[in-house]
C-alpha cells in the first residue's frame, strides 16, 4: 500500500514540473513585451522597462523559472497584476468555494453513477437502454447551458434556491447548502451518466465471472452477491476512471462558477484571463495541478483498498 502511494508521489513530481514549467514558459515566451501588454501601448519605454525589471522579465527564461519555482516552493505565487494582492491570498479566498463544489459533485457523481449503473446492469432491458440514452444526453448537453436552464427554472421562476452567489458554511449552513445545490447538480449531471455507463459495463462483466456463479452455487442470495462481492469488483475499473473524470470536472467548474457567479477559483481564472493577469491564472493552474495529484493519490488508496492484488509490490 505505502509502496503504491510512494510510486504515485514520485510520478506526481514530473507532472507538477511540467504544469509549472509549461505555464511559466508560456508566459516567458509570450511574443512581444509582457509589460507592453499589461500597461497598454501608451506607456513610455521607461515605464515598460521598469515593470520588466520589477517582474524579472529582463533575465534569461531558465533563471526566471528557477526564481519562480523557488518562490512557489516557499508558497509564494507572486502578486496579482490587477488587485496587487498576493496570488495565494487571492486564490485561497476562492479555494473553499471550489473545494465544496468539486467534492460535492464528485460524491454525487460517484454514488449516483454507481447506483444507476448497477441498477441498469441487473435490470437490463428498458432500464439499460434508458441509462444509455440519458448518458448520451448528459454527454451532449453543455454544462453551462444546463446550469442556465436549472438556474432559470429553480431559482428565477420557482424561487426554490438563490439564483447566484455563495454563502460560506460558517455564516449559514442552510444558505451554504442551498447555494451549492444547483451548481453541484449541473456539474454532476455530465459525469454521473458517464460513470453509470462505465459501472454498467463493468458490473455486467463482473456478473459473468466464474466466482459469481460459484457464489450462486453456495446458495448466497443474489442481492448479497451484488452488494458484497460484485460491486466491489466492478468498482475497481470505475475508480481508476475517477481521476480522469476529476480533471474534466475542474474544467466544468470554470464554466459552472461563471454561470452561478460563485467566487471560486474557476471564475477567478476567467476574470484573470480577461484582464491578462498572468500570475493569477498560472496560480490557478498550479492549484488545479496539485488537486489532480492529490485526487490521483486518493484514487490509488481506494484502488488498493478495493483490490488486494494491487497491494503487493
Amino acid at each position, binding site marked *: 500500500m505505502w509502496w503504491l502511494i510512494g510510486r504515485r508521489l514520485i510520478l506526481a513530481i514530473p507532472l507538477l514540473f511540467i504544469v509549472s514549467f509549461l505555464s511559466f514558459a508560456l508566459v516567458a515566451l509570450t511574443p512581444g513585451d509582457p509589460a507592453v501588454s499589461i500597461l497598454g501601448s501608451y506607456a513610455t519605454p521607461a515605464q515598460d522597462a521598469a515593470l520588466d525589471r520589477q517582474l524579472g522579465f529582463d533575465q534569461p527564461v531558465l533563471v526566471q523559472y528557477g526564481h519562480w519555482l523557488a518562490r512557489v516552493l516557499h508558497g509564494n505565487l507572486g502578486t496579482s497584476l490587477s488587485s496587487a494582492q498576493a496570488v495565494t491570498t487571492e486564490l485561497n479566498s476562492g479555494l473553499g468555494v471550489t473545494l465544496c463544489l468539486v467534492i460535492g459533485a464528485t460524491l454525487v457523481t460517484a454514488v449516483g453513477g454507481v447506483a444507476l449503473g448497477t441498477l441498469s446492469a441487473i435490470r437490463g432491458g428498458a432500464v439499460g437502454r434508458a441509462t444509455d440514452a440519458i448518458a448520451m444526453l448528459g454527454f451532449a448537453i*453543455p454544462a453551462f447551458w444546463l446550469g*442556465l436552464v436549472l438556474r*432559470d427554472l429553480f431559482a428565477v421562476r420557482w424561487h426554490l434556491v438563490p439564483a447566484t452567489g455563495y454563502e460560506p458554511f460558517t455564516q449559514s449552513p442552510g444558505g451554504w447548502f442551498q447555494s451549492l445545490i444547483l451548481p453541484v447538480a449541473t456539474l454532476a449531471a455530465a459525469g454521473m451518466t458517464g460513470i453509470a455507463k462505465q459501472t454498467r459495463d463493468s458490473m455486467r462483466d463482473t456478473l459473468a465471472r*466464474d466466482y459469481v456463479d460459484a457464489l450462486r452455487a453456495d446458495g*448466497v442470495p443474489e442481492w448479497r452477491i451484488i452488494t458484497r462481492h460484485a460491486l466491489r469488483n466492478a468498482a475497481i475499473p470505475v475508480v481508476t476512471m475517477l481521476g480522469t473524470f476529476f480533471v474534466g470536472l475542474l*474544467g466544468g467548474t470554470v464554466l459552472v462558477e461563471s454561470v452561478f457567479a460563485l467566487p471560486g477559483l474557476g471564475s477567478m481564472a476567467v476574470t484573470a*484571463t480577461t484582464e491578462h493577469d498572468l500570475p493569477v491564472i498560472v496560480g490557478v493552474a498550479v492549484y488545479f495541478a496539485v488537486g489532480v495529484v492529490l485526487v490521483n493519490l486518493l484514487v490509488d488508496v481506494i484502488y488498493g483498498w478495493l483490490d488486494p492484488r494491487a497491494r503487493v509490490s
Partner: protein
Amino acid sequence: MRALLRRPLGAAALIILLLIVVACAAAPWLAPYHPDAANLNDALAGPGAAHWLGTDELGRDILSRLLYGGRPALLDSLLVVAVTLVIGVPAGLLAGFLGGWADRLTMQLVDVGLALPAMVIVLVVLSVFGGKLTIALIALGILLVPPLVRIVRSAALAVRSELYVDAARVSGVPPARIATRHVLPRLRGTILVQASIVAALSLLFTTGLAYLGFGATPPDPSWGSMTAEASQTLAQSPWLLIASGGIIGLTVLCLGLLADTLRDLTVAKWTGDQSAVYIPAPRGAAKYTANESASVGALLSVRGLTVTIQQNAIAVPVVQDVSLDIRAGETVGLVGESGSGKTSVARSVIGLLRGGARIEAGRIVFDGADVTGLAGAAARRLRGGQIAFIAQEPMAALDPTCRIGPLLAQAVRCHQQVTAREARQQVLDLLRQAQLPDPERVARCYPHQLSGGMAQRVAVARALAGRPRLLIADEPTAALDVTVQAEIIALLRGLQEQTGLAILVVSHDWGVVAELCHRAVVMYAGQVVEEAPVAGLIGAAAHPYTRLLLAANPAQAPDGATGLPVIPGTIPAPGEWPAACHFSPRCPQAADACTVGPVPLHEIAAARRSRCVLSATAIEPASQP
C-alpha cells in the same frame, strides 16, 4: 459505411450532422436575414412566420444567427480535431509499433497529459497570447492528444502481434511501410470513433469558451456567445436559450451517437459475441415432460433432459434426452470430449446454466422432489445445502477481493443458523477436513496468495460448507499438475468414505474416472452413448466411441507404443448433429444401419446400456482397435 447506414440511429445521426454542416456552410444563401440586421421594434419575438425561431433582444433573426454562428463553432472544432489527429495517430502508431523505450516514454507523457486540467491551460494560453483563439485551439488540440494516443497504441499493439504483420516483417517489408500499409487501415474504425469523440469534446469546449467571452467578437454570432446573450434575456424570452443550447446539444449528440455506432460496428467485427452471462431461466417457461418415471431409491434422477441454446433465434440442443441416476454414496463419472454437453448436464442439476442455455424438456428429481428450474429461496437452499458444485477453474471460482475465511463462513451461514464465531470455527474445521495445512493462515489469505492445488482444496472445503448430500465436481483435476491431481482424487475418495457423500465427477480423463467412480456415463454430442460400471467398462466397452475414447487415453497406451491413437474427425457442433447415430460420421465400424434413423439407448446387460446398433454383437469381442 454501408453497415453504418443500416443502423437507424447511426444513419440518422450522420444525416443530421451533414445537414447541420451543409446548412452552416451555405449560411449566406440559406439565411433569411443578415445575421446582424437589428430591428428593435421586433425584439424578443417568439417563433413565427417571419422569424422561424424568433428574434433576440436586438430583434435579430435567431435562425440566421444560428446558421452563421455555426461556422466559427464548427471550424474551431475542425481545427482541434485536425491537430489532435495529426499528432495523436502517428504518436500512438509509433508507440504501439516500435515498443521499447519509445513506447515507455510516450506512455509516461500520456500519463502526465491525462492529468493536465485542459480548461485552465487553455485559459493560460489565451491570457498569454492576448486572446488569440487560434493558438488556444491548437493548445486544446494538443491537450486532447493523450487519450487518443493511448487508444491508437493499444489497437496498434493488437494488430502488430497478428500473423500477417509478422509475415510482412519476416519478408523484409520496411517497418514504416508495414505501419502505413498494413496496420493503419485496420485502425480506421478506431480512429473514426475517436475523431467523432474529439469533435464532440472540442465543440463543447469551444462553445464553452465562447460562452465565457473567449470566442467570436461581437456582433459576430457564435453558438456559445448566443447562449451567453440568451442568459441576459432569459426572463423575457426563453427561445434564444433553447435554440442556441439545442443546436450545440444536437450536434454533440449526433457526434456521440455516430461514435457509439461506429464503435459497435468495429468491435462487433473483431471480437464476436462474448455471451457467458448467466440469465436466470424465466419461471415456468420450460415445458418439462416426464417421459420416464424417476427411479425409486436414487438420490438424483435426471430424466429426458434436453438443454438448448439460442443461435440466431433458433433453439439448438446442446443436451438431448439425457437420463441418469445417482444413488446415495455412489460416485458416478460423466465422461466425454469437450463439447459433448457433460458440463451442461451438471449445471442443469443445480440450475446454473450459462450463456443463455435453458432446460427445454426433462425432469430433475432430487431426493424425491422435482427441482427442475427451481428459483428463489428454494433454489438457494438446494444449492450448497443439498447439492454442492465445484467449478472447473478453482482459482476463477474465488472472488479475488474476498479472504478465504469470510467467503467460506458466508457459505456456512447460508445454510445453518450459527453465530459468526461458530461459523469461523466451522470454516477452520472444513479447511482441516480438506487437508489444508495451517487453516488459520489459509483463512486469512486472499485467493491470489494460494497455489492452484490449495485453491482446489479450498473449493472442496467450500463445497462441504452447507453439508450437502451430492457433490458435483466439474473437471476437478484438469487445471492441476499430476502430483496434485492424485492428492485431490485421494481427498475426494477419503471424503466419500467418511461422509457417504454422493459424487458426480464430470471429466474427460479416464484415469480420474477409474480411480474415483463406481459407474460411468459416457456422453457424445449431447447424448448418453454408454452407461456401465467402471470395472466392466474398461476393457469391455460396448460402444465404438467409448472404445476409441479409452484407447486415446495416455494411461491406457501400452509401453513403447509410437503415438496415441486418435479419433479421426472432430465432434460436431450443436445444430450439426446427424439425425441418426451422432457418432456414425466418425465411427470406423459404421454400417448402413447406423444412418437410418435415431438410435435408442438400449439395455445390453444388467446395469449396462449402449446407444449403438451393433452393440448387441460388439460386446463380446472387446478387442482394442
